[in-house]
């Protein structure tokens, strides 16, 4: 177990180093001028001397490898730099934004997991039926649906037309943070959550469906039936246990898609989360923020994959043996 965690931590470290290098190379070769991003429209008003000062302050006058090492050193000390557009420490922004995003992603993740699993079971148990075909088609169509378009439709119907929900933002515009009620917050969450989870249902439903068909055709289900087990009890004892582990594990491993979906959803709903921040950072040439969120997303996905593997190691007796043997 300790070995497992150590190995995973080692992997994360090497991934972070590689990604940081890669993304640094990408970002530092951009035609965007960071000084301009910082100053904004008034770039023409500053003198070459001032400009030089700024460049020196950020270390822009040094060579690229030196810049990278400086940045890495700072990151190691917990300093991700300062955002150019928000004029705040990057770590602060990430924390603030992530706490908004995690609500959106967490609820969507849970909902899509539960519904996807249920739909998958329904489909798989009735393989070939109309219900099965319906769920399958739904999943395939959802997998082809652009999430942001779906969000737009929801906004159009439920917010603009029916007026049930607000058009955007995590809380009503112009109100103070303290005044926002829980109901208001929830109201702002409904549509983004719906957008993010309806699409997320597809892959988990299809996977669960495949798995349950495989299990239902397995020798051990046949034997259990021969032993007189049937109905709910049979499903509970032998079916559920065998399909839930891979399904939950797969769902943890899908943090990447979740993050990607959140970026688009947050953009559509002007939800002030991490996804919206990275779009702003990219569009505004905010290099420190862009790099900071990139690294953060690596950790986020890694945690998902780690949980997926951990589940197997902890729960599946077959993996335990392998662990002790190697």
């Amino acid at each position, binding site marked *: 177990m300790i070995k497992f965690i150590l190995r995973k931590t080692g992997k994360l470290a090497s991934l972070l180093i590689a990604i940081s290098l890669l993304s640094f190379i990408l970002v530092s070769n951009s035609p965007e001028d960071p000084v301009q991003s910082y100053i904004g429209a008034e770039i023409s008003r500053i003198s070459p001397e001032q400009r030089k000062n700024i460049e020196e302050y950020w270390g822009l006058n040094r060579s690229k490898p030196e810049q990278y090492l400086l940045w890495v050193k700072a990151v190691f000390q917990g300093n991700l730099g300062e955002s150019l557009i928000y004029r705040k420490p990057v770590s602060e922004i990430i924390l603030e934004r992530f706490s908004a995003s995690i609500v959106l992603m967490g609820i969507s993740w849970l909902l899509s997991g539960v519904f996807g699993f249920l739909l998958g079971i329904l489909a798989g148990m009735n393989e070939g039926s109309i219900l099965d075909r319906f769920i399958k088609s739904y999943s395939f169509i959802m997998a082809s649906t652009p999430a942001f378009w779906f969000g737009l439709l929801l906004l159009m119907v439920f917010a603009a037309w029916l007026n049930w929900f607000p058009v955007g933002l995590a809380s009503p515009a112009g109100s103070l943070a303290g005044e926002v009620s829980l109901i208001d917050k929830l109201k702002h969450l409904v549509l983004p959550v719906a957008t993010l989870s309806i699409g997320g249902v597809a892959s988990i439903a299809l996977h669960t469906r495949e798995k349950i068909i495989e299990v239902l055709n397995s020798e051990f289900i046949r034997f259990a039936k*021969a*032993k007189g*087990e049937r109905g709910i009890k049979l499903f509970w004892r032998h079916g559920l*246990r*065998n399909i839930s*582990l891979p399904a939950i594990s797969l769902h943890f491993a899908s943090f990447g898609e979740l993050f990607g979906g959140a970026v688009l959803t947050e953009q559509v709903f002007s939800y002030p989360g991490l996804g919206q921040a990275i779009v702003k950072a990219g569009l505004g040439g905010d290099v420190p923020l862009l790099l900071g969120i990139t690294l953060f997303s690596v950790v986020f996905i890694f945690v998902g994959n780690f949980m997926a593997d951990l589940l197997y190691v902890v729960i599946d007796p077959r993996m335990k043996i392998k662990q002790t043997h190697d």
Partner: protein
Amino acid sequence: MNKKSFSNTKNQIPLLEVKNLSLLFPQYKEGLKESYIQVIRDFELTIYPGEIVAVVGSSGSGKSLLADSILGILPDNAEIMGRLLFNGEHLSTKRQQQLRGKSISLIPQSVKALDPLMKTSKQVQSVIPDKKAKKRIQEEAFIKLGLPPETGDKYPHELSGGMARRVLIATAMVSESELIIADEPTPGLDELTWEETLTNIKQLSKSNRGIMFITHDIHAALKIADKIAVFYAGETLEIANKEDFSGKGERLRHPYTKALWLALPENNFKPLKGNHPESDEVLIGCVFEKRCPIATEFCKTNKPKSAKINNGITRCFYA
């Protein structure tokens, strides 16, 4: 039931009687037209308490489906015809549901039949009706079969092939079943485990249980069975007594059985030419006609009915 069995057995009610059992699967639907594929055709078999009847057939002849039909665990699209009698009473779907795991139990082929995520003891205990005594009964069975006591705490993947086989047999042993269907319990075993498995199965029949022993291993069948039903392309071609398998097979009734007997290493190794018919082949005449050394034009178009011939049953015009 007035049609007396050929068997030399005692004057008692047969434990299991299978009459004219046919099993069909719809093959494909094209519009409203539907065609069927027949996996088992007019199968018949009688098992008395304390008797081991082997059903011998090559793989792909639908033997496992036979077990499923008796247990009532066929896939939904299967269509079954004929009569099944258990202890002289009609074995309806409902009765199958009540009896399986209790009066009728299955010994499946391999460790794959055990739920990979459940400890073996739990899987064996699930068939014991007495909830209080189940732990004790299961442990006793394990000891009887020579399984170390800690086996119960193991997961299926931790068992060796032989141990898994014994766990599967234990499941049948602890149940109060009168009929045990052993579905290919021997393939892939080394000689020692093979022998041991057969001994264990034989042991089960001692307590007056009837055993249907489905196998493709004619050696195993001859070793423990009292009667041997030869299964080919979904039909019973012959039901012979163990003693009939001797010499050059003169006492065997059907050419296929003779060929099987002569193909054994100790009897000349004479192989049978040709292949088992495909499951979707439609055969109007005798199923064995294509490979039969004594077949005639008549066999091509006419299907032989089963007939009693010197204390056995066979399905051949020239027996």
